[in-house]
């Protein structure tokens, strides 16, 4: 992938540099040491070659063997310094690079945790995932290789060029001209190859999309004997990618030979003119020889510099994409009301304590702390909400749920059922109107505490790598094994868990691939049960459980719902029949409300849905 990313450039270089320098600054001592060591190592390299001349001229030719020994000892010290610095900077850089990457990755992950849900709606998992993989990788690669390589080749270029000027200012003009040519060519070629690479990128995306779709639907492919037809299409796309990639790589591949031959050209011209200068007596033979050795050495570092600079650019554009996420404003939480335990004191007043009932602690204006018992009274007052400005999903919804009541929402897809559930625990904030929880505006309650007081069972159950017990424990990290098994029994999950190879200790991998949809939902219900909150939101929680099993867990669900305020969003109407109030939503408005019998008697939308005249999806 690195190859395709090489030609990207950050849009706002200054901002990105600022972002990345935050991390570099933390390690500035180590990085300074790295720069010094790289310099020593590079200088040892340049001087090492330079010293050949005096060693030969002064000691070998006159036959001064003890002098040669002293000279070589001196060179040995220089070389040793070079080797030690190389060892030092490579090892140090590994540590610094890993540390920086660790920090960036950690910061990114922590940041992502604070982002509002609306951010995840707008950005797909794939996009976010590639921040963690591709973008971090380019930074990591650049830190590991390019950072020191760029410094090194820069020093070598400057050092070599200095030597050239020292040896012959006149001839170095030729080198300067050839540097200029190389620069022009590199610039031209990176622009050109960008076109080829973006075309390759397009075909690559095309092929990868095809692979993703067909592999994901592979079971259907098999059922329809469609394998050979797929293969045919695959071959066509594969061929297209092959052709465009060949062109792109050819283009980038000519870079090295062109730069090398420019340097040969330079070498030849320098040799020719240098020879004439030597004949004319303007230059001595020894200087010409070392001059030409240096000329020969110029191509490599220029090439390396150009290449590594591209990698650095790719890393910077990766850093830019990461910094974009770091700049997204996190979920707003200005709530000050917190959740705590309290006991009824002797004077009949509530007092904070370690156990006892849950209370909301609200700072009154007088500076006193009001303790309000947590009961689960939820009210919507003229709530307007839309994911996109100007497109309201809920239009002035008002409703109330008293503690212990079961409220059900019914309506077709897009009617706003799930949205209502997401507003209660502030996964989203209302545009206008308000929602109150025990009389407190939910925006005044600290988010973590608000969410701790509600438990949600979603239609899609997300399981994490770990054991079954771990996954149930997700609802309450302090739950004992006994509590977990209790919750599983309540959700009727115990029987299938017992049948798994290792019972509660069965390891789930890859989002619990080996469980059926229904079994997953039972686990999610157990998870909610172990959380034991006053408010329960069931968002199509039993849609994949068959009616028979639903009936079996029905009693348990009833027990779970006892004394709790419950919001039920249901696909199947048998689930909502006994709700205190059924709310029929359509297009963000409440169309009908009442209990089952009342609504059936109305012969309205609910009746139509109920008798199967309308499709619920």
């Amino acid at each position, binding site marked *: 992938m690195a190859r395709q990313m090489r030609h990207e450039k950050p849009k706002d270089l200054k901002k990105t540099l600022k972002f990345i320098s935050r991390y570099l600054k933390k390690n500035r001592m180590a990085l300074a040491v790295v720069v010094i060591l790289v310099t020593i190592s590079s200088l040892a390299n340049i001087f090492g070659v330079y010293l050949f001349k005096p060693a030969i001229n002064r000691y070998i030719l006159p036959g001064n063997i003890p002098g040669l020994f002293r000279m070589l000892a001196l060179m040995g010290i220089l070389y040793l310094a070079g080797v030690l610095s190389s060892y030092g900077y490579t090892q140090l850089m590994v540590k610094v690079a890993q540390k920086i990457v660790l920090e960036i990755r950690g910061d990114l992950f922590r940041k992502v945790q604070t982002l509002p849900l609306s951010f995840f709606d707008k950005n797909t998992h794939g996009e976010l995932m590639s921040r963690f993989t591709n973008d971090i990788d380019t930074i990591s690669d650049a830190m590991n290789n390019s950072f020191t390589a760029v410094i090194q080749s820069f020093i070598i270029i400057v050092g070599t060029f200095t030597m050239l000027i020292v040896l012959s200012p006149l001839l170095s003009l030729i080198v300067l001209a050839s540097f200029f040519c190389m620069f022009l060519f590199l610039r031209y070629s990176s622009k050109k190859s960008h076109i080829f690479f973006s075309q390759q990128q397009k075909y690559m995306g095309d092929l990868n999309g095809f692979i993703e779709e067909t592999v994901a639907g592979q079971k259907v492919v098999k059922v329809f004997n469609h394998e050979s037809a797929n293969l045919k299409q695959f071959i066509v796309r594969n061929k297209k990618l092959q052709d465009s990639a060949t062109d792109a790589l050819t283009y980038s591949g000519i870079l090295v030979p062109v730069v090398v031959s420019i340097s040969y050209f330079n070498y030849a011209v320098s040799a020719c003119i240098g020879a004439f200068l030597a004949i004319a007596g303007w230059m001595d033979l020894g200087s010409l020889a070392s001059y030409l050795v240096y000329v020969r050495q110029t191509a490599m570092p220029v090439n390396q510099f150009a290449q590594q600079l591209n990698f650095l650019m790719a890393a910077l554009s990766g850093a830019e994409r990461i910094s974009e996420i770091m700049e997204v404003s996190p979920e707003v939480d200005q709530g000050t009301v917190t959740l705590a335990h309290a006991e009824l004191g002797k004077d009949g007043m509530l007092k904070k304590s370690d156990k006892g009932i849950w209370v909301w602690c609200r700072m009154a204006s007088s500076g006193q702390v009001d303790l309000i018992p947590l009961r689960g009274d939820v009210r919507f007052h003229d709530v307007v909400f839309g994911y996109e400005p100007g497109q309201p999903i809920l239009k002035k919804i008002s409703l109330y749920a008293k503690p212990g009541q079961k409220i059900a929402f019914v309506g077709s897809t897009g009617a706003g059922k799930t949205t209502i559930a997401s507003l209660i625990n502030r996964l989203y904030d209302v545009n206008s109107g308000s929602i109150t929880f025990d009389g407190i505006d939910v925006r005044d309650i600290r988010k973590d505490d608000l969410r701790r007081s509600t438990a949600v069972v*979603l239609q899609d159950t997300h399981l994490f790598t770990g054991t079954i017990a771990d996954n149930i424990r997700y609802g309450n990290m302090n739950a004992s094994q006994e509590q977990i098994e209790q919750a599983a029994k309540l959700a009727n999950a115990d029987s299938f868990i017992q049948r798994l190879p290792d019972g509660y200790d069965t390891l789930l991998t890859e989002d619990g691939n080996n469980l059926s949809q229904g079994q997953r939902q039972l686990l999610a219900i157990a998870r909610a049960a172990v*959380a034991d909150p006053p408010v329960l939101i069931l968002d199509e929680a039993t849609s994949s459980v068959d*009616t028979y099993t639903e009936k079996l867990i029905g009693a348990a669900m009833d027990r779970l719902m006892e004394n709790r305020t419950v919001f039920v969003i249901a696909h199947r109407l048998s689930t909502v029949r006994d709700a205190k109030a059924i709310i029929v939503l359509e297009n963000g408005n409440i169309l009908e409300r009442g209990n089952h019998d009342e609504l059936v008697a109305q012969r309205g939308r609910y009746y139509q849905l109920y008798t199967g005249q309308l499709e619920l999806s």
Partner: protein
Amino acid sequence: MLKRFRKYFIKTKKDFIISTVCVSFEATFELIIPMIMASIIDVGVAQRNKSYILQRSFLMIFCSMISLVLGLFYARFAARAGQRFGAALREDEYRKVQSFSFSNLDHFNTPSLITRLTSDITILQNTICNGLRPMVRGPIMMIMALSMSILMSPQLAIVFLIAMPILGICLFLIFRKIGPLYGKMQKALDKLNSVVQENLIAIRTVKSFVRGKNENQKFENVNGAFCNSSEQAFHYASLNLPCFQFVMYATILCILWFGGNLIHIGSMKVGALTGFLSYVLQILNSLMMISNVFLMLSRSTTSANRILEVLDEPVDIVGGTEQVKVEHGSIDFDHVSFKYRKTAKRDVLSDICLHIDAGQTVGIIGGTGAAKSSLVQLIPRLYDVGSGSLKIDGHDVREYPVAYLRDAVGMVLQKNTLFSGTIRENLKWGNPEATQEELDWACRTACVDEFLSRMPEGYDTDLSQGGVNLSGGQKQRLCIARALLKHPKILILDDSTSAVDTATEARIRAGLAQLRGTTILIISQRINSIEHADRIIVLEDGKINEVGTHDILLAHNRIYRDIYEIQKEGAIA
């Protein structure tokens, strides 16, 4: 390992050979050009021969032109070789995946298979593209420089005959360490990625349960583990450079010392010593090049292994050789037991005995995990039975060629997929040669026609990937129509009308009743979807609880009556 990929190198042999030849000659010119240069100074300047200098300079330019042309050819052919290699490998892997059975697919999960087909191939391909040049140049430069230097001074050559093995051993030791470390690093990275992925997918759950801190902790652990393992790996990898420099500098010093002494004795000339020094640098440089290629190779080993795992996966369902076709569609289960993994303790289906006549309509009902889907998936051999046998028309399913068998069995899966393309293209999956009349018929039978007319371009409406602009019920109806177009002898509907409203479902059922000579199996959670079936199978925990008609089961089967009662409550009679 490389041996396993030889096949793909051979496929693009010509390109590899041409590019290798180009690099070889390019490398030769790199050695020739300095020689010409030496002659300019030694002969031209010494003799003050201006025309000789000019002539030699032009020769140098000419050589560099040839080397440029060679370089350009190399770029072209190497790109072709690398891309062909990758394309051929990718094609083979895809072909292999196409031959996978359901249990093979279960073994690798979908995202992992996709990575193996996409980025793993790209990594391998990049290694080859970037590694080819140094891999060829390195040895050539080394051999040429080595022979030149031996020619110049056999005594001095002893110095690097000693130095080279030392460097070689150092590099070898580093690589031996590094191979497993890279493997460990990759594993740590996989873990890290899976934590991130799980977190992103489940972000709603994480937020709802206020588990951000917990997730951060989890991430810190895997992040730290990855950091440690990569630090270890890179620690060894970066020993490469100082090791190389150490040996190089030591060699230079030794050569200057011994060379100086040799010159002192008079058995060597100064020019030879300078030439010798430049060869030393070249030889060690080429060793370094080769070692870098190995470093790259060992990093891509993980990808190569992951690809090989796919290519090596034994496909467990191989079609029979008898050229028999399904004629009628009668089905016999004879003491069939089945489990998804051989290591699983319990059977998913155990001792199923069942006979279904051709043309019958059979309903299957049972609770979550009763193995309803497992039962029907055995019929088109999506999985193979564990023990016992399954016969269609009296022939064991394993006798039929798989293509014949699956052509005869139309199946609508519970988790179904539509593909990007138009509605027509999707329907034609059932039968590529279907006429317009046939399409109309299938759509009428599956009640697709009701919404088809409302689609902007009818049959030619483009479904974006996965058919997202259709409702669940509409998708299910399209999938049924697609299966009908196969004109199957056996039609299996695995809970395929769950999102369709009851009125439409009744119409679909009536349409299906018109099918003549087709055995129909319907799995449903709704009694009214199957109550009219000729026979109804009640499954419980992987065993047949009872088989009978609606009336018989209703009369005395406990499970059936329970389900019936529950659903009766939910509907107005």
